[in-house]
């Protein structure tokens, strides 16, 4: 059994986080009026900030016996929305996986993954959605990190955790660039630890 991920010293804020926070663009009224959309694409346009973001995760997870990183490309639920917003775990997950020597597992909408899959249905504010993973992507007892760009209500991450656990893996932590604390995703994850770089209110 792996040891729990240790908390870094929180007394000193890492100076790189300021650059990360300021490169996130908030786009109002997307996808609907009243919603402030957290756009991470400007972060990707700044090679130094993108590298800092990935480095912060790599520093945390190197040498922690994590053999797989899972990332989603799904709709996530925001509380007062009719449509979900796509997750961008495909962008941050692979560089982290490469650096820590772990495999990368894409978790996707139905019918995107060829071959045999397992599915997890989950509830959106209006209606349901479904997350899929390849059979055989994880082995029994593997330690997995789930990476996403943002945690809102935690619905997508919970579905990801459920999928991985059903396949016999252990999700040691979820890692996100941004947390929207008011949407209480952290609580929804229950026993699974969550690590985020910045918060947005």
């Amino acid at each position, binding site marked *: 059994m792996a040891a729990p991920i240790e908390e870094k010293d929180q007394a000193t804020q890492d100076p790189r986080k300021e650059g990360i926070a300021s490169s996130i663009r908030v786009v109002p009224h997307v996808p609907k009026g009243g919603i402030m*959309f957290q756009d991470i694409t400007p972060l990707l*346009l700044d090679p130094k900030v993108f590298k800092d973001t990935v480095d912060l995760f790599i520093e945390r997870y190197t040498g922690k016996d994590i053999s797989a990183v899972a990332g989603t490309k799904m709709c996530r639920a925001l509380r007062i929305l009719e449509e979900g917003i796509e997750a961008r775990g495909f962008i941050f997950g692979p560089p982290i*996986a490469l650096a820590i020597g772990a495999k990368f597992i894409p978790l996707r909408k139905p019918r995107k*993954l060829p*071959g045999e899959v397992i599915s997890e249905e989950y509830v959106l504010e209006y209606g349901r959605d479904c997350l899929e993973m390849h059979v055989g992507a994880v082995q029994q007892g593997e330690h997995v990190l789930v990476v996403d760009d943002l945690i809102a209500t935690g619905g997508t991450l919970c579905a990801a955790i459920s999928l991985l656990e059903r396949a016999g893996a252990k999700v040691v932590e979820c890692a996100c660039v941004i947390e929207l604390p008011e949407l209480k995703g952290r609580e929804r994850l229950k026993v699974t630890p969550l690590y985020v770089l910045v918060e947005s209110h």
Partner: protein
Amino acid sequence: MKEEIKSKMVEKEINGTIEDPRLKAITSSIRVVPDFPKPGIMFNDITTLLLQPKVFKDVIDMFVERYKGMRIDAVAGIEARGFIFGPPVALEIEAKFIPLRKPKKLPGEVISEKYVLEYGKDCLEMHVGALEAHERVLIIDDFVATGGTMSAAIRLIERAGGEVVECACLLGLPKFKVRTSPLFQKISLASICFFMYMLPLSLGIA
């Protein structure tokens, strides 16, 4: 469980070329799934490659070795699997990463480029302001078949004033001859070349 078919290697076509020792593991880690997404289509599934950290790293290393010295300002990745390979390459060569996406995914102002599929049309979008004029761009996707999506990506970059230095893919169909494709004729051929799997295919001005 569908029967897995290993990718056939095109070793025979590379007369006299010294093969990179990493290529064997790369090609054999790509899984061919029959009848996906429709009956009759043999789908090249790269997710099995991603499950092998060393092989995934080798793919990225091969791209980085080629592009590191080419003063690339931006790597544009085509949704969705271009998002898996593009960012690690961008990070290594210290370029920015620009996602090229299906319609209505990017918030804020975008430019759009329509393109034709075998049956119907599709559309690729890029953020206004992602690219500055004259920036040198590498476009990455996992797989190039007809080249329709890649052509749309090239047009998007050029409309924004960027210069496509090269297009790169992990897997290109051997029978897709870029240099004779009408889709690419308007582009300066010197700037485009493909990494076919097993077969780096340079189409520069001789």
